[in-house]
C-alpha cells in the first residue's frame, strides 16, 4: 500500500514537471531557461555538499572534482551508449531519457567511488587540514582530466559528433533528479543515520563512545555527497556542447560553499535557497564574472561576521515558519 501511494504521488509530480518543462520550452527565453536548469543542478550540488559539510561537520572544499568525475563519466558513457540505444529502440525521447539516466548513474557511481577513495584516508584529519587536503584532491582530479588525452585534455570533451555533446538535459530530468535527491537526503538526515552524522559533528569522541561507527559513517556521507555532485555534473555536461577541466576549477567548489553558507550550514532548505541564489547570480552576472566573485567573497566575509549561521541557521524552513506562526518548538533536529 505504501508503495502504491508513493508511486501515485511520484507520477503526479512527474506530470507536473513534464507540464512545466513543456511550457518552459515553448514560452520562456533561453536565458531564463538556463537559470532554471542551473538552479536545479545547484540544488543537487548544495544538498549533497550540505550532507557532509553541514550535517556531518566535515568541511570539504574540493567537491568540484567529484562534479568533474560525474560530468566526464556521464558524458563519455552517454556518448558511447547513445548510438547503441538508438539502434535498438529508435531515436527519440525514450532513447534520450535512457541514455541520460544511464550516463548519470555511471557518472554518479564513478564520483561516489572517487569520494570513497578520497574520503577514506582524508576523513581522519580535522578541520582546516581536511579542508586543504580536499582542495588538493580536487585540484589533482582536475589536473588529471587536463592531461587525459582520450577525454580531450584541456580543450575538453565534446563526444563523437561535430555538434558536440547531445543536449539530453531537460527541465523534467533536472528537477526529477533534484526532487528525488532532495527526498532521499532529507529522509537520511532525519533518520538514525542522520542523527549519528550530526552527533559526529557535535562531538566525535562522544559519538564513538556511544558505539557510533564514526569512520564508516563519515566516509558514507562523503561518498553520497560526491555521488550527488556527480549527478549534477552529468546533468551539467548534457546541457553544454562540451565540458572542459576549466569548468571544474576551485571556483566551482567556492560556488558550492557559497550555496550552503548563505542558506545556513546544516539546513537542507537553506541549501536549496543557496543553490537557487548562486544560479541566478551566475547567469545575471555572466559578463561581470569578477564582480560576481567579489560579491561572493564579500558575502562570505559579511555572513561570517554578522550572521554565521546563514539565513536559516541549521533549521529547516518548516521549523522557521512553525516557530513564527505556530507553537514554538525547539527542533534542532540535525
Amino acid at each position, binding site marked *: 500500500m505504501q508503495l502504491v501511494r508513493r508511486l501515485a504521488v511520484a507520477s503526479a509530480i512527474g506530470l507536473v514537471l513534464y507540464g512545466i518543462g513543456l511550457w518552459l520550452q515553448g514560452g520562456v527565453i533561453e536565458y531564463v531557461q538556463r537559470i532554471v536548469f542551473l538552479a536545479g543542478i545547484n540544488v543537487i550540488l548544495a544538498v549533497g555538499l550540505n550532507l557532509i559539510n553541514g550535517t556531518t561537520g566535515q568541511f570539504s572544499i574540493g567537491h568540484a572534482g567529484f562534479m568533474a568525475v560525474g560530468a566526464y563519466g556521464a558524458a563519455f558513457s552517454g556518448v558511447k551508449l547513445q548510438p547503441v540505444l538508438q539502434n535498438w529502440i529508435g531515436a527519440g525521447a525514450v532513447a534520450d531519457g535512457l541514455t541520460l539516466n544511464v550516463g548519470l548513474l555511471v557518472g554518479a557511481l564513478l564520483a561516489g567511488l572517487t569520494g570513497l577513495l578520497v574520503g577514506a584516508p582524508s576523513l581522519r584529519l580535522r578541520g582546516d587540514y581536511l579542508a586543504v587536503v580536499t582542495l588538493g584532491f580536487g585540484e589533482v582530479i582536475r589536473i588529471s582530466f587536463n592531461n587525459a588525452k582520450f577525454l580531450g585534455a584541456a580543450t575538453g570533451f565534446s563526444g563523437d559528433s561535430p555538434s558536440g555533446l547531445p543536449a539530453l538535459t531537460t527541465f523534467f530530468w533536472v528537477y526529477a533528479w533534484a526532487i528525488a535527491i532532495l527526498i532521499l537526503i532529507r*529522509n*537520511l538526515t532525519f533518520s*538514525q543515520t542522520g*542523527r549519528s552524522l550530526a552527533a559526529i559533528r557535535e*562531538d566525535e569522541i562522544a559519538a564513538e563512545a556511544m*558505539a*557510533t561507527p*564514526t569512520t564508516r559513517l563519515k566516509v558514507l556521507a562523503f561518498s553520497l555527497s560526491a555521488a550527488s555532485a556527480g549527478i549534477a555534473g552529468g546533468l551539467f555536461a548534457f546541457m553544454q556542447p562540451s565540458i572542459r577541466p576549466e569548468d571544474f576549477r576551485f571556483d566551482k567548489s567556492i560556488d558550492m560553499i557559497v550555496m550552503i553558507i548563505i542558506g545556513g550550514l546544516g539546513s537542507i532548505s537553506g541549501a536549496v535557497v543557496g543553490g537557487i541564489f548562486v544560479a541566478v547570480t551566475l547567469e545575471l552576472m555572466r559578463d561581470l564574472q569578477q564582480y560576481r566573485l567579489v560579491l561572493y567573497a564579500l558575502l562570505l566575509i559579511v555572513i561570517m561576521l554578522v550572521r554565521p549561521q546563514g539565513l536559516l541557521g541549521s533549521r529547516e524552513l518548516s521549523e522557521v515558519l512553525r516557530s513564527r506562526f505556530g507553537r514554538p518548538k*525547539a527542533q534542532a533536529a540535525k
Partner: protein
Amino acid sequence: MSLLSLEKVDKIFGGLSALKQVSLEVPERAIFGLIGPNGAGKTTLFNVITGVYSPDGGVIRFEGQSIGGQSPARIAHRGIARTFQNIRLFRAMTVEENVMVAGHHLHQASVLGAMLRTRAQIADEARLRKRAGELLEIMGLGKHAEDVAGSLPYGSQRRLEIARALMLQPKLLLLDEPAAGMNSQEAGELERQIRFLRDQMGLTIVLVEHNMAVVMSVCEAVHVVDHGETIAHGTPENVKKDPAVLAAYLGKSTEEVA
C-alpha cells in the same frame, strides 16, 4: 567471575607514566568507586578501559575477553558505556535525540532503508523514540525531551549523559564525576538513581568521584590511585582510615576529604 578486570595496566604519555601496573577486579552488579587526588590518572583509566587510549602494558578483560586496544565504538557495542568528566553532550541536538543516537542495538533498518523511508525504518524510529522516552523518565528528564540539550541546567545535563549511556543497554556503566557541581539534595537523588540502576536494571557501576559523601554512601568497594598507581583498596570505611590515602589527600587539599 569479575565483569571487568585489569591486570597490571600501564599507560605512558611521551615518557610520563600516567598509569603504572594498575590492577583491579570489578565484580558483577557491584557499585565500585575509583578515587584519588586530581591528576591521579582516574580519567586516564576510564579512557584506557573504553578504548580512547590503548594500554601500553597489561591486560584488560571484560566478561573474560581481552578488550585492550579495541576501538571505543567496538567496546561500547560490547556493553561498556560511560559519561565524561567535562560533559560531552550533542549540544545542538534535542535531549531526546541525544539519547536516541546511542540506540544502535534497537536499530535494524539499513542506510538505504533510511533514504527510502521504508516501513521498517519508520518502525525503528518509533522504537528508538519510545525507549529514549523511558530512559529519560527514569532519569527525571521526561518533560525536557524536546528541549535543546545545550540549554539544560548543569545537573540535568549530567543526568542526560547518564540516560544516553543507558541507551546502549550496557552491562558496565562508567560514571566520571557524576556528582560534580551538585548540591547535597541533587547528590542524594543521584545516589538513589545509582542504586536503582544496579538493583532494578542489573548494571555494574564504576564511578570516579571527588564527592566523598557520595562515595561513602553508595560504593561497596573503593580503589584509590595516586600518580597512576594503586595505593589502597577495600571498603569505603577501611580506605577512609588508610594512612597512605590520607597522606595522598592531605598532601594536596583538605577540602576533598570527607
